[in-house]
């Protein structure tokens, strides 16, 4: 098969999917929005040395999903969102007053809820194939391809909210991230903004679980930010670059997974990793 035939085959296949299948369009919209939101907050989390928070929270969300499944709730978001938000607040907001160091407490909460969730799913099995269930929650499922219109709208609404919060509080988020002491001393209510960041990141995590599963969420959060930081030196440039990069990588990842039939979440993450490689290289070249 020559290159031209191959390209046209890919193109035909994609346009086929897009015109024929509603779920592919839904998946693209949701995937891009989630990637965008996580990358915006990702810069702050990376800079505050909270990269692992995404991981920790997603494990909490996994535990919460297990509880919701066992309780046979029709809409498990009702349990998952509050639990995740509360954990995020505990992790981020209590900040310096904590006796246990940040990374240790995140690790504790993360493994505790992971094992708790797995235990629950095994003790009160709701389906015959537990390992498939678990695998789906951990690595992202095909559920991204079975989204209903309501779920898509929920996701769009939440994303708009996250983006609006980020744009409106952009300068405050910068100040709190760069120098919290100065911000507080000169009259900014840092703890309120930390709380806000915690809540928003929890919401993003819950949304992103559908897309890439709980094990891979932190990739969506940290990779675009880290890549952008390799090349750009101002906060604004890093934010813009990581947002653009996140959208590009998640779109590309999803297209590849449609054409090649690979798992959605893992493919997006692999594309993100590749982009990180490219940006590291560009950063090195720029330096010399």
């Amino acid at each position: 098969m020559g290159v031209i035939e191959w390209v046209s085959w890919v193109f035909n296949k994609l346009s086929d999917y897009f015109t024929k299948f509603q779920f592919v369009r839904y998946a693209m919209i949701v995937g891009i929005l989630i990637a965008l939101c996580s990358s915006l907050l990702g810069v702050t989390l990376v800079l505050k040395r909270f990269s692992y928070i995404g991981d920790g929270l997603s494990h909490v969300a996994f535990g919460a999903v297990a509880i919701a499944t066992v309780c046979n709730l029709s809409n498990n978001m009702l349990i998952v969102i509050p639990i995740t938000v509360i954990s995020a607040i505990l992790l981020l907001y209590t900040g310096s007053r904590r006796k246990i160091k940040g990374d240790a407490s995140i690790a504790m909460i993360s493994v505790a809820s992971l094992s708790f969730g797995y235990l629950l799913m095994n003790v009160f099995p709701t389906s015959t194939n537990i390992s498939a269930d678990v695998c789906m929650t951990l690595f992202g499922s095909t559920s991204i391809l079975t989204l209903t219109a309501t779920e898509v709208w929920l996701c769009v609404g939440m994303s708009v909210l996250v983006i609006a919060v980020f744009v409106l509080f952009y300068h405050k988020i910068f100040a709190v991230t760069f120098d919290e002491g100065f911000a507080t001393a000169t009259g900014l209510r840092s703890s309120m903004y930390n709380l806000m960041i915690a809540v928003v990141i929890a919401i993003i995590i819950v949304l992103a679980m559908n897309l890439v599963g709980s094990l891979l969420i932190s990739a969506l959060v940290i990779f675009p930010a880290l890549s952008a930081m390799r090349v750009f030196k101002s906060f604004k440039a890093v934010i813009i670059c990581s947002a653009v990069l996140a959208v590009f990588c998640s779109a590309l990842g999803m297209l590849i997974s449609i054409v090649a039939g690979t798992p959605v979440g893992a493919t997006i993450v692999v594309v993100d990793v590749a982009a990180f490689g490219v940006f590291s290289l560009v950063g090195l070249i720029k330096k010399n």
Partner: protein
Amino acid sequence: MALLTCRDLVLGYEGKKVVEELNFSVNAGDYLCIVGENGSGKTTLMKTILKLHAPISGRIETGEGLKQNEIGYLPQQTMVQKDFPASVNEIVLSGCLNRCGFRPFYNREEKQAAKKNMERLGITDLAGRCYRELSGGQQQRVLLARALCATGKLLLLDEPVAGLDPKAMADLYHLIENLNSFDGITVIMISHDIAAAVKYASHILHLSFKPLFFGRKSDYIHSETGKLFREVYGGER
């Protein structure tokens, strides 16, 4: 009514006292220099005034309607992560944030103020540079410009001249003197430069576990503490 009054203030960490018996007040328009050896609690006092740190006992009263967002502050140390992407311009502007309230963006006056303060500190040509790639003295100037942006009524400086070259140091003292006498901004400065403290300040607070001296500069010069300290640290000119 004083701008700031400390009553029976005891400062410390986790119940361990660092300074006690702090009783003094700062009036609007004062220029107070806090001196004392390393570890005598100067920074701790400043952080307590800024409500970044809670006192063990006693209280600080503010007067004349002083609000938290009218205070400019230069920290002694700023823990900026090694790889933090932030341009000089972004950092200086962030000093203006306390004027914004709920407005999400900076207005023209605030951008002007940032520009003016960058000019004052001679860092206009660094505006687009990355903060973490600057020299120590340049970084100090950036943070000074940010502090000036945040200043409404009161300016707190923790060792502002540390790391500055002689010319920048002289310029800074001159600038602060102007802010104090022409713009009426109250200044509280921590300094090891006893000669300059005695030259520019109106009041001196000398800390060493207890306040050894608080009062007007002219009284300090003739006090036992002042004489001794200036002999050791070379305050004579």
